[in-house]
């Protein structure tokens, strides 16, 4: 079945009459199953260009729908609804409503780049997944997903000091996503680390939470990066027709 018809056979689009006779022929039950007709009028014709304007989405126009990305995809193997080819199709056609249905799936791309490896058209599907995730957030279709929170916690530390400190990343991430630090497997993990790592290193890591690891003379790099991040945010919002001063 061509993939653009996939949405038509969802249960809510199928109609079956329990009792129906047409021209004297009894077609009750599944004999009378048919697909509701529909007219699509709400194409978002800007969607492809908007996603192409975000980092990673640049080459979406090259896609010829071969499906190599989905075939190679790590997450698709776990969940068949995770389907990069289908999403690229929806974006290029402008089926915004259909795309938004999968807003809680798209962020799950693990960036393994198997799709990028397999793609015969250099679409960079991994980048398209990131651009689409970003687009869904900027457009207000979703709140930032846990992966976006993690990226933000991690990147902010890199921008601030030039280095990261594992413990701080972990604590900030759990705090910001409202998760408990006291989950059985996390406790086992931390206990494992404390018992195993050499005392010297543990002391160093402990001190690192107080005196965070830093790249010396980083201040100018930090300011340059912050300027660039602001500039990019404004450019991304402009490309999507959003107020450049708006909150993230």
């Amino acid at each position, binding site marked *: 079945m061509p993939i653009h018809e996939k949405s038509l056979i969802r249960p809510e689009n199928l109609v079956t009459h329990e009792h129906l006779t047409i021209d004297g022929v009894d077609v009750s039950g599944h004999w009378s199953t048919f697909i509701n007709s529909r007219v699509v009028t709400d194409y978002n014709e800007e969607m492809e260009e908007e996603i192409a304007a975000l*980092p*990673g989405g640049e080459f979406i126009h090259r896609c010829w729908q071969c499906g190599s990305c989905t075939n190679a995809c*790590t*997450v698709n193997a*776990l969940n068949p609804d995770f389907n990069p080819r289908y999403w690229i199709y929806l974006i290029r056609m402008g089926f915004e409503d259909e795309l938004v249905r999968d807003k809680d799936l798209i962020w*799950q791309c*693990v*960036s*393994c*780049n*198997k799709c*990028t*490896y397999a793609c015969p058209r250099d679409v*960079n599907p991994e*980048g398209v997944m*990131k651009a689409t995730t*970003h687009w869904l957030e900027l457009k207000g279709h979703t709140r930032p*997903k*846990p*992966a*976006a*929170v*993690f*990226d*933000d916690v*991690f*990147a902010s530390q*890199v921008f601030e000091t*030039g*280095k*990261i*400190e*594992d413990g701080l990343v*972990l604590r900030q*991430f759990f705090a910001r*996503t409202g998760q408990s630090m006291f989950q*059985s*497997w996390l406790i*086992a*993990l931390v206990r*494992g*680390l404390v018992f*195993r*790592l*050499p005392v010297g*290193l543990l002391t160093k*890591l402990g001190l690192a939470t107080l005196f965070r*690891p830093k*790249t*010396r*003379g*980083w201040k*100018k*790099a930090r*300011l*340059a*990066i912050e*300027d*660039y*991040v602001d500039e990019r945010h404004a450019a991304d919002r402009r490309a999507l027709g959003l107020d450049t001063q708006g909150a993230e």
Partner: protein
Amino acid sequence: MKHQRVAYYPGCALEGTGHAYNRSTKAVGKALGLDLVELKNWNCCGAMEVKNVDPKLQTYLSARNLSIAEDMGFDTVMAPCNGCYHNLKKAEYDLANDEASREVTGRLSSKAGHKTYEAGKVETIHALDWIKDSVGEEGLKTRIKGGLKGLKIANYYGCMYTRPRHIFPEKDKGPGSESTYKPHYMDDLLAAAGAEIVEYPLKTACCGGAHTLSDSDTSTRLVLNLLTTAEACGAEVIATECPTCHTGLEMHQMRAEKVFGQKTTVKILYFTQLLGMALGLSARKVGVHENMSESQDLLYERGIV
């Protein structure tokens, strides 16, 4: 000898949870007579996170590290972490091929007050290239003391060592070169060290490292697949060459048991730990006791330590 003395970029992970990889890499280098000179005042490569904020920032972060290697007079930098290795390679590729990346890197470098790195000045290699190109299998065989005694090993390379392939122009060059489809450098080295390498179809499968905390269930399922497949292939040990993969495998092996109730017993060791022990270094020296995965009994039983 090629790569006898190279710049060393350990990266953040090797200063934290990947400590055992750092110490075993240094110990193996020393045992093989190879010199590592750590990059002065390096910065984080941005791992798998900064690119999601903006890919060109990641290029800048790596360009800064490459410019340090150049300033220190090196034409080669070795990164044992797949993330660091991948990002340095990616920066090299983008700076050579993408004008916009060059422009952003140039602008940020001059604002930050350091030289702008230009593509082609410094070659990035992985710890696997470092040992393979300097000592090689034959050289390794002459230095083995004790060896790995037929320990059954599945080699796990993960994603970032081979994908996307265009950033690794030196790979896929025919016999002898590394393959992005079926990498074999770790297989070659560990076989030379006396291990029995099992055929492992998931060499370059993904462990879900990018979402190890933000989507733990996905990562646990992916890791469990890696572990059970290794066991089905007859492996006693999975050898790793990336701190993120290694920590992910250890952590989700434990999580699979605690949360999914699925126990696996295959052990996880860095390839440098295995090489170190084959070269006669003690298990302690290469940090085996620091691993979450308890392999001491197995190593003792097999007479490796």
